Each structure stands twice: as structure tokens, then as C-alpha cells.
């Protein structure tokens, strides 16, 4: 069988899933559902971003909404006040958040466990307070209004359906880059640090450098998610970037499972959809939300796709060698031959 046919068959579930996502907005004419799917997409980006830290390198970051907010405000300010084109502002959102990631990571990444967690929580709090109180720059509690719809290389993203396709493209790109990144020498170093920092260092892994790099990459993606959010709702205020938001992200990883690529996607889809599904029983909504979390934690504490043993590398995005020994025959590398 030719390699391409084999690959296609092996990847057929993912290809079908992607195809379904492309067709979905046409089959579901309901704009409200399309909107929810856009939000799910934004949270998938955020969850993947946090997954790199909490899942792969094992740093417990609990203030991720700080980077999310910085991204959203950067893109909003640059398009509304500076009149920058969307593409540029979008990229800057990631870069500025990444720069903050570096500034926060450099001094704090020597901290371990709960101390680092507290530092990130403090960061989130500071970002939120600055957004709330720096009236002249951030608009204070009123936030920023009239954020333009994106125009990408001449394509005006006007309708919700169009925005949905824009988000889908971003999500696919994020998952693609992440899947490749974690399944490379870089990703192996991250997991090695998570598993045993001392042994990783003894093998020549510069632990601090890798932690800072992972932090910056993670912040970059969170910033991108912020820009995606700002240009979709077109009005942002500090309330969207509180610690509650950070905790939702943690809940997504707890539910879906971290340390693999599928968990954050499934977690985001479920946790964002649940409140909407239960909208009919509005007063019990949060109760059910909590109940689902408790049940999952009881039945599967590592999350639905969790435990680091669930190594889903997304073959579609990453055709690098995986299995190296089958029975008595060596297959030094399948893809490259």
C-alpha cells in the first residue's frame, strides 16, 4: 500500500473530525451555536497554551488569564487607537504576551511547585488590577469598545460563520505547531524536566532555559487567544480576565487531561458547552457544572484523556518516527525512508 494511502487511513478519524468541523456551520444554521463553537476554539488555544506548562514541563501556572488579557488589550489598543492592521496587531498580541512571559519567567522560574503557582496567581491579579485602574490607557472598568472586525489580507471577516473559519484556522495552526513541538527534541527535554529535573540536568538539559522558553511560548499562544477573543466580541473589559478565567482553564485541563494533545480539546469543548446546554435550567447551571467536575474527578482523576501515559501525538500533524521495534524486525524510521 502506498505510504500516502496508509497515512490517510491511519488518520481517517482526525480527517473526518476536521471535515465535520468545516461543514458544521453550514449544517447548523443556528448562529448561536456557531458562536459557542468560536468560544470553544478560543478556549482550545488557551488550554493548549496552558497544557505546555502544566502538562508537558510540569510547571503549575494558575494565572494564565493574565497573558490572555494582555493579548486582548494589546490587539484592541493597537487596532482602535494606533490604527494598525489586524494581522500586525494579532501578531503583536502574541509577542507582547510572550515578552511578559519572559519578564515573569526569568525571575520566578527558579521557584518550585506551589511558590511558582502563587507567583503566577499574583501576576494575574496585577494584570487585572492594572487593566481596571489605569483609566487613561485601558479605559478602566469600562474597557475598550468598538474593536474592529478583522481583515486578513483583504478578507473581511464579517459574519460569525466567517469568524468561525478564522478561529478554526488559528486552532489548527496552534495544535499543529504544538503537536510537532512536543514531539521533538525540545518537547522531550520538557517532559524530561517534568519527570526528573535533576536527571535532565545531568543529561545536559539547561533546565532554567527550557522553563523560560516554554513559558514564553505558552504566553505567546495565550496572547493570540486574547486577540481572537477581543476581535470577536469587539468589546473587552477587565472582567473577562480575572482569576476565575484562569481557574476555568485549569478545570478544562483537569477534565480533559493534560500532557497530551487531545485532552485540552475535549476538556474545552465540554466545559464551554455545558453551561450553554443547561441554559434552560439556568438556576441549576453552575450546580451541574460543579457536579460534572466532581464526578469526573471521582471516576477519572487524571482527566478523560489524562495521565501522561495517553501519548497522542496527532499523526496527521507529525509524521516523525514513533515505533522503532516490531517483533523481530527493526523499522529504524518509517516516515523518512
Amino acid at each position, binding site marked *: 500500500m502506498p505510504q500516502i494511502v496508509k497515512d490517510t487511513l491511519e488518520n481517517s478519524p482526525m480527517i473526518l473530525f476536521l471535515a465535520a468541523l468545516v461543514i458544521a456551520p453550514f449544517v447548523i444554521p443556528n448562529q448561536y451555536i456557531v458562536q459557542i463553537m468560536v468560544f470553544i476554539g478560543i478556549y482550545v488555544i488557551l488550554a493548549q497554551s496552558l497544557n505546555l506548562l502544566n502538562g508537558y514541563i510540569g510547571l503549575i501556572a494558575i494565572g494564565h488569564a493574565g497573558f490572555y488579557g494582555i493579548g486582548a488589550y494589546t490587539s484592541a489598543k493597537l487596532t482602535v487607537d494606533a490604527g494598525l492592521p489586524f494581522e500586525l496587531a494579532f501578531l503583536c498580541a502574541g509577542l507582547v504576551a510572550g515578552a511578559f512571559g519572559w519578564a515573569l519567567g526569568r525571575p520566578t522560574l527558579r521557584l518550585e511547585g506551589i511558590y511558582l503557582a502563587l507567583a503566577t496567581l499574583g501576576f494575574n491579579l496585577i494584570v487585572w488590577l492594572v487593566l481596571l485602574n489605569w483609566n487613561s490607557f485601558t479605559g478602566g472598568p469600562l474597557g475598550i469598545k468598538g474593536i474592529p472586525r478583522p481583515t486578513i489580507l483583504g478578507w473581511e471577516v464579517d459574519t460569525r460563520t466567517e469568524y468561525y473559519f478564522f478561529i478554526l484556522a488559528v486552532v489548527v495552526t496552534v495544535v499543529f*505547531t504544538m503537536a*510537532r*513541538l512536543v514531539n*521533538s*527534541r*525540545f*518537547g*522531550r*527535554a520538557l*517532559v*524530561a524536566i517534568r*519527570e*526528573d529535573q*535533576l*536527571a*535532565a*540536568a*545531568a*543529561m*545536559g*538539559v*539547561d*533546565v532554567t532555559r527550557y522553563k523560560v*522558553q516554554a513559558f514564553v*511560548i505558552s504566553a505567546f499562544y495565550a496572547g493570540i487567544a486574547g486577540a481572537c477573543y477581543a476581535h470577536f466580541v469587539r468589546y473587552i473589559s477587565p472582567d473577562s480576565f480575572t482569576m476565575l478565567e484562569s481557574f476555568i482553564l485549569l478545570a478544562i485541563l483537569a477534565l480533559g487531561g493534560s*500532557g497530551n494533545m487531545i485532552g485540552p480539546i475535549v476538556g474545552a469543548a465540554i466545559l464551554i458547552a455545558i453551561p450553554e446546554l443547561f441554559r434552560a435550567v439556568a438556576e441549576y447551571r453552575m450546580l451541574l457544572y460543579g457536579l460534572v467536575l466532581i464526578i469526573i474527578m471521582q471516576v477519572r482523576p487524571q482527566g478523560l484523556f489524562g495521565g*501522561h*501515559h495517553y501519548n497522542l501525538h496527532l499523526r496527521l500533524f507529525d509524521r*516523525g*518516527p*514513533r*515505533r*522503532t*521495534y516490531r517483533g523481530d524486525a*527493526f523499522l*529504524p*524510521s518509517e516516515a*523518512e525512508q
Partner: protein
Amino acid sequence: MSGFLEIERLGKDYGGVKAVHDVSLTVGEGEIVSLIGPNGAGKTTLFNCITGTASASEGQVRYLGQDITHLPPHRIAEAGIRRTFQHIRLFREMTVMENVLVGAHLTTSSGIASGILRPAWQKKEEHAARARVLEVLEQFEERLLPRVDQKVKVLSYANQRRVEIARCLVSTPRLILLDEPTAGMNPHETQGIVELIFRLRDAGYTLLVVEHKMRLVMNVSDRVVVLDHGEKIAEGPPAEVTENPAVIEAYLGQRENAAIE
């Protein structure tokens, strides 16, 4: 011979407790030196000071003439020193292949951009690294090869020790520190490690070994260094050291069973 690894008047105290005190030691290139002594004699502390895991309080460690005393562990690894750990420290959730690939971290160079974009050289590098891992695993006969895609946490204790050694070998370091490489192994498995140590010596590696099994020590060592209470009490060829009254008193005399095996 001298000038390869030189330890000069090394000392390490933990809040007043002198774990290692005034130890000087030279290891020549291609030598197998064993470090023995009762539990708590400071053997592992000495290892930690050499590899940067612990920072020496006094004295100096020189490797190839370079002062490496206070370098961080990854810089010492860069200099070409690898170690195993007394208590196995593997990346438990990673496969045998992935564990050993991390050992090849410094002999590969792909980073963030090449990890995502996968240019031809990155694929070639990855391919070569995996081939190299298989080559190293072959030295362990059929112990590790069939398990190359299994997580190391499911392997037997002895196999985990082997993976630790493989993880060191993959980068072809010049100096390897083995901290009790045969702990938890039966006599047959121990013999396998002895043979491996001989093969490594023939391949030109320099080894510093901490070991409790005296027969192994007598068998493989060019030189034996005896530590007791953090101080060096004897040094010399194996046969000579076992005759040394101070050693017999400190170590062998009280632990006859250790002398037997």
C-alpha cells in the same frame, strides 16, 4: 595519566556535618576506579560534587585541566561527564527510546523552530539519533531492544538500571560515573554488568564506580579508593587495598558478608 579528572582537597558539609572532608583523588584516562566504603561514607556526595548536583564547600574538581567545581550540572554534562544515580532517576513516563534520546540531548541540536518546521537536517538528525540509541541498546543483548517502545516505569529494576547506563552511553562521554550499577541485580545480571564494564574499558571510557559488591570491585577495578566518614583512608590496586588494616577495620572486617558478595 594525570590531568584527566583531578579532585583536590574536596570538602562538603551539610550544616556542620562533614559528608566529605579533604578528599583528593586523581583518575587517569581509560582507568576504572572504584569508590568503596560503608554506607554514609560520602561516596554519593563525592559523585554529586563532581557532577554539580551538590556544590562543594571547599576544594576543587578539575576535568581536562578545566575547573568545573562550581559549574551547574548541565555544563558539567557538556564537558563530557555522565552519571547514573544510586536511586534510579529515569523519566518514568517516557519510553526507553525517549529516555535514551534525552541522553543524546547534547549530541543533537534541534530547537523550537526546527522542531515545528522539520527541515531536512532535523529529520536526518532525529533519524541518526534514533539509530544511535538502537546501537547502544544492542549492547544490552535482548534486555532492552524488545522493550524500546515501552515506558520505563514498567521495566524491571535491573532493566531500569540498564536504561540509566544506556542513557549515559548514547552521548559517548569520556568519563562515566556509575553509582551502584548492580544494586538489585542477581549474580547472573551482575555478571552482565561486569562484562559491560570491561567492554566499556576496551572502548576507551573512563569509569568511576561506586559499588558494594566486592567481587565486582576486585574484578574490574584498576584502582580502589576507600572512603570512611567522608575521608579517604586508603587507595591502591584492589589486592593491596584489601590487605590494608585500616580498610579491614573500617569496612571489610565488620562486614564479612560484603567481602563474600
